[in-house]
């Protein structure tokens, strides 16, 4: 695909003034500084000046700003939405990245250096040289117990999380089990409670002591946060009510036959249920008979 220089030569005025990777250098520096701070304080939400982008808020502007600030020549970009490279959103984001940077994009998880994702972590284990950028709708895990931004910040500052624990206790009282399907709150580095973005429970264990760097961007809410490699990340649980991931017992992917991936359920008009791997790229590798490393 064309680089900015090539685009300029073809379209002239229309693209003049845009930088490499869409964002100007000053913006990128600010975002990178904020990301450094985020990495230095695992799980802490760093406020940042969220820029205007050619997509609306709520469509991944946070994740996009992170990706655009970090990419450079030599990077290979993968974009997925709910595990799918082919979804409309993923396609559009990928196209924007391609056109403003001229970088190579890929579907192969193992080939990417930066993976931007909405609501899923790939089934293939990520390496030390890879970064996962997650799109975050609501970065504040305490929002359900404290609506005031100021008071929530104070709770984080003082590590005063009893009301959050209370909410989880109440869930257990009301339902007999831990609540929350997606975006289950986690304790990072034994210090901050963090919202991992609406990833399924299935993906939560991947955050703990990973080789890769996880970066979280919330564009509308203007917060960035990070989990550096080899950080302890533990879902909030009680001694007698432990966190559990979803089970897909007795189910297999209709496309590749895998029984050990996170699957999407599709219900046909006749009421038949089929299950398919949510991570389409991984599904491909299984179909092709390729072995890839999984998270432990």
């Amino acid at each position, binding site marked *: 695909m064309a680089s900015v220089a090539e685009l300029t030569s073809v379209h002239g005025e229309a693209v003049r003034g845009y930088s490499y990777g869409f964002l100007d250098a000053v913006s990128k520096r600010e975002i990178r500084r904020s990301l450094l701070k985020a990495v230095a304080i695992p799980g802490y939400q760093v406020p940042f000046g969220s820029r205007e982008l050619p997509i609306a808020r709520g469509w991944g502007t946070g994740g996009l700003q992170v990706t655009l600030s970090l990419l450079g020549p030599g990077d290979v970009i993968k974009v997925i939405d709910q595990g799918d490279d082919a979804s409309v959103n993923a396609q559009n984001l990928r196209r924007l990245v391609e056109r403003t940077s001229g970088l190579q994009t890929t579907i192969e998880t193992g080939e990417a250096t930066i993976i931007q994702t909405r609501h899923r972590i790939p089934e293939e284990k990520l390496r030390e040289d890879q970064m996962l950028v997650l799109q975050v709708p609501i970065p504040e895990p305490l929002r359900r117990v404290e609506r005031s931004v100021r008071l929530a910040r104070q709770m984080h500052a*003082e*590590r*005063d999380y*009893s*009301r959050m*624990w*209370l909410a989880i*206790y*109440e869930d*257990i*009282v*009301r339902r007999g089990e831990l609540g929350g399907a997606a975006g289950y709150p986690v304790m990072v580095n034994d210090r901050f409670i963090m919202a991992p973005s609406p990833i399924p429970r299935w993906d939560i264990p991947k955050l703990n002591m990973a080789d890769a760097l996880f970066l979280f961007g919330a564009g509308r809410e203007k917060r960035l946060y990070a989990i550096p490699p080899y950080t302890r990340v533990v879902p909030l649980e*009680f*001694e*007698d*009510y432990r966190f559990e991931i979803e089970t897909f017992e007795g189910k297999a992917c209709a496309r590749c036959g895998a029984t050990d991936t996170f699957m999407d359920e599709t219900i046909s008009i006749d009421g038949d249920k089929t299950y398919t791997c949510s991570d389409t790229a991984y599904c491909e590798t299984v179909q092709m008979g390729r072995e890839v490393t999984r998270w432990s």
Partner: protein
Amino acid sequence: MVMNETPLLSVQGLTKIFGRGCPQCLEQTGPTADSNYCSACGSIVACGDVNIEVYDGEVLGLVGESGSGKSTVLQCLFQDTMPSSGAAYLTAFAEGRKSIWEATSGERRMLRNKLLGMVYQNPRDGLDLMVTAGGNIAERLLAVDWRNVAAMREKSADYLTRTEVPIERMDHLPAYFSGGMQQRVQIAKALANSPSLVLLDELTTGLDISVQAGVLDLVRHIQREYGLSAIVVSHDLSVIRLLADRTVVMKMGRVVEQGVTDQVLEDPQHPYTQLLVSSAA
């Protein structure tokens, strides 16, 4: 031997001024001035230079009318509000060597969740009405790092039993309880973590008479059974007579008299106390 006893709580020079305050505030206000309002700077002296002691295992009554500052004393002790000046030493906190008002935020949470308990006149102030009764108690346990649901439920059930709240209501929301039962849940919550000192602010005001009797009886019973130390604030002398071993009388933010309860009520020395006692039915 008694003379050397260290009080459980020692409050020294507690002053709370609403407004900017000035050097004349204390002399412009108080019982002799018959006002809380400092005419020099327009501030309100809610309480001025209050000295109070509570000993282990005793109930101290704090009596006075509106404007006496008695509730302000409790609010400062529980740190719902910070005093303008003064110090308070609790033997259970830093061995009584550090004023509770010098506490760090973590220490303050410890004070509010473990070392002290508070029951407010309005249950809304002490409970989250939309959290289950058991959950309200569990909040204090969680604050001191309990992490076992079954253990917390057992403990909460225990406290609720002590305050005679039916166990079946443990998972119900206090929003739907009667006033008396809400108070009982509040008391149960205040008892959680076995605090050194429990603060009771107008415990029964607003409750029906028969309900008041039950709640008062409960408090006496708990106090005896568990040797609780408490400060009971009330404008109702009969509550003070029933619960308090010693009593402090406040007017316009100052302490005007203190002594053994029956002596203060039967042989009041200060003019204001005499007025108060003779006004009671």
